[in-house]
């Protein structure tokens, strides 16, 4: 079966594909180490020059490497299951088995998400039924062609069926949901709610990632340090630019803790230069007119809302820095528009977060303060606390959830004879 994406018109086609995938998963068991071997070859193939400009491919190559995924498998499944064997658990033994067929509903805004999602289920030995959002069909096809090249025996590709159909085709969505034993759902509130409401079998395990927002925070010792400031600003710019600030891990607001002698005007000037440079390297190729309107409105609303607010932006909608004060995150614009808010106490800010916030990017000099912030953030619903510049680095756990284990059954065997 080809892994290239198939336009689907009939529910029967989906049901048929799922039957085939389930049969393959049952008949031909595959150990994680065998999956890792193919992934390693896939990572190498993705280094081809023609894929250099495909967003996210550089990260995907790192993700697929054995050195990256083995520790994830070890943590989630334990040592022996990596080799497809039983592991001792006191007097019992444990071994991971696939759920069967896992359905993937990736978000439309992260280019490599269909692939990232399916790799998690493949490591558990599952068959994968993936709905590829229309915007990502071309990019996903390019990436999957490389898997086809390196997986000549079809070890993985026969476990994958990628479907393309309009999200409003409820008959196809329902057929897909009815055909799976597990589901990985990613995306915005509307999309996630719609998919969650589909008629999954009662046994299906459903894991939902998103929607979330993210923020960043720096203490005065870090942002006020003139020597290191440019480097921190470049990190922030990188986090804002990736995925066009529309991912759940994209910082929407940067909180700066006030400090004696620290001038926020100087900081945003450095940040402006970092944004200009990032924009020079990664200019937008296109934009939805509605986003341009939203960016213009965000700039105007910010400055008209309070005559002490400041903003830096070019004549184009390329990027925007909104400077002011406040401990609450403003409504996000998600168009490379970063609110920079001065606060007296970062702990006060972090303690106000609710579970909406996924990732907190930090630039904190004082390790004890960072420890306190991490603890408070964890209590306040934040699932990832990382260094600025690494906010999008995909890893397990994500959204507080493991990535491979939810899509396997851990079978417990207590030997009948001691």
């Amino acid at each position: 079966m080809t892994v290239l994406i198939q336009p689907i018109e009939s529910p029967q086609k989906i049901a048929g594909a799922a039957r085939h995938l389930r049969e393959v998963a049952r008949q031909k068991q595959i150990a994680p180490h065998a999956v890792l071997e193919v992934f390693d070859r896939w990572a190498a193939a993705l280094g081809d020059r023609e894929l250099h400009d495909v967003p996210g491919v550089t990260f995907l190559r790192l993700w697929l490497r054995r050195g990256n995924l083995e520790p994830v498998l070890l943590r989630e499944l334990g040592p022996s299951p990596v080799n497809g064997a039983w592991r001792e658990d006191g007097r019992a033994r444990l071994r991971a088995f696939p759920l069967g067929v896992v359905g993937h509903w990736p978000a439309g805004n992260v280019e490599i998400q269909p692939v990232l999602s399916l790799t998690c289920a493949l490591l558990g030995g599952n068959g994968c039924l993936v709905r590829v959002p229309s915007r990502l069909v071309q990019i996903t096809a390019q990436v999957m062609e490389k898997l086809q090249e390196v997986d000549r025996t079809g070890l993985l590709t026969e476990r994958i069926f990628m479907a393309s159909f309009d999200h409003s085709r409820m008959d196809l969505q329902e057929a897909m949901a009815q055909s799976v034993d597990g589901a990985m759902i990613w995306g915005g509130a509307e999309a996630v709610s719609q998919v969650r409401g589909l008629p999954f079998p009662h046994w299906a395990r459903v894991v939902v990632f998103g929607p979330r927002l993210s923020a960043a925070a720096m203490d005065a010792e870090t942002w006020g340090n003139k020597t290191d400031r440019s480097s921190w600003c470049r990190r922030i710019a990188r986090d804002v630019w990736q995925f066009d600030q529309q991912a759940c891990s994209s910082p929407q607001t940067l909180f700066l803790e006030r400090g004696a002698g620290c001038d926020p005007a100087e900081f945003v000037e450095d940040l402006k230069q970092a944004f200009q440079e990032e924009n020079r390297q990664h200019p937008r190729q296109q934009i939805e007119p509605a986003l341009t309107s939203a960016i213009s409105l965000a700039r105007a609303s910010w400055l008209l809302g309070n005559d002490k607010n400041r903003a830096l932006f070019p004549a184009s909608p390329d990027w925007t820095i909104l400077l002011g004060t406040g401990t609450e995150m403003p409504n996000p614009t998600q168009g490379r528009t970063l609110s920079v808010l001065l606060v007296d106490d970062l702990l006060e800010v972090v303690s106000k977060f609710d579970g909406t916030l996924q990732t907190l990017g930090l630039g904190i000099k004082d390790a004890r303060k960072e420890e306190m912030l991490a603890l408070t953030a964890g209590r306040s619903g934040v699932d990832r606390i990382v260094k600025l510049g690494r906010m999008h680095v995909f890893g397990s756990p994500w959204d507080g959830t493991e990535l491979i284990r939810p899509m396997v059954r851990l079978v417990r065997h207590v030997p009948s004879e001691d």
Partner: protein
Amino acid sequence: MSTLAEIEQAIESLLLQPPYGVDPQHRHSALLALFKKELAYACEQNPRFRNYVEQWPIDFCLADKISDLPYLPVGVFKTSPPLALVGADDVKRTLSSSATTGQVPSRVVLDAATARRMAKGVITIIRDFIGPARRPYLVIDTPENLAARAEMGARGAAIQALGSFATEVVSCLRPGHEGDSSVDLEKLLACAAKWKDSDVLVYGFTYVIWTNLVQPLQRQGITLDVPNVRVLHSGGWKRLHEQAVTREVFTRGVASIFGCSPDRVIDYYGMVENVGVIYPDCDHGNKHVPAFADVIVRDPLTLAPVKAGQRGLIQVCSVLPTSFPGFLLLTEDMAEVIDYDECPCGRRGISFRFAGRAPKAEVRGCGNLENTRYQQSQGVGVA
């Protein structure tokens, strides 16, 4: 002379010019100078507006193009209280847009001078399309939308704006019990008989004309036989496009009901925030800009003005308002620039065609929240 008096004098002189006869270069110079004065005046009146202008990447005093001047997105007029350059005591009328269900309407405040200029602006434009004569005015709406009130919606404002062309005004819809309306056929037929050989002006919202006049009369096989009618309509095509009614179908339908030629049916684009300026279609299907206004179509990717033949977001520019900062407004609508001069109809300056509301962004990604968890628990939506 005060700054405001100077501005008012300059506006009056532009209103006296032939609306579509001024050389584009000459018009640009005159408008640029006046917009700069108006921006400086608005900065004096409103510190928050001054804050916006001061943070604009180009110093407006040094700008040599209207397209470089600081513009506001129309969405800023959805705030309460409305953004104003005059005190509450000077507000004579508040206009609100016709927001669709669930949306917040825009609101703009008019003082007496701005209201007067608004009427003058519309008269100047319409006169160029239908001539100066007064004539019977048939309003395809209910009577309550005829009255001038302190708070007026877009429909009422549009109806009022054409009142200067009327010898008598008749509304031909009657309100129903459930907020709907229906045609008062007896009244309509009486008017048609009485005005059979007269010049007649008709105005209504596009979808109101279609659903409350054309469709019911077509169903009953009634035509009005008023061949000298001029039918003006506005308000957008969204609802009709949802019913698969094209511009051609609409125009033919209206013309057949009135028994007139299709070129007597004129669509115009306008919005309450752009007071006093409307954009009727010329005989070649293009929209034009009068001497006291301008239109810039901006590329959404760069916000730079597009070339002829390209599409972008519409920025409307008008020197008329002095009671609110509505001089330079980026709309959420799209247009295609046909040319920057030389429309075959003879009207000078930019000609463009409306291309609908900018479509909402389709990507609903993993960062797209409707409510935060706290807001959801409190029953509050993200604005």
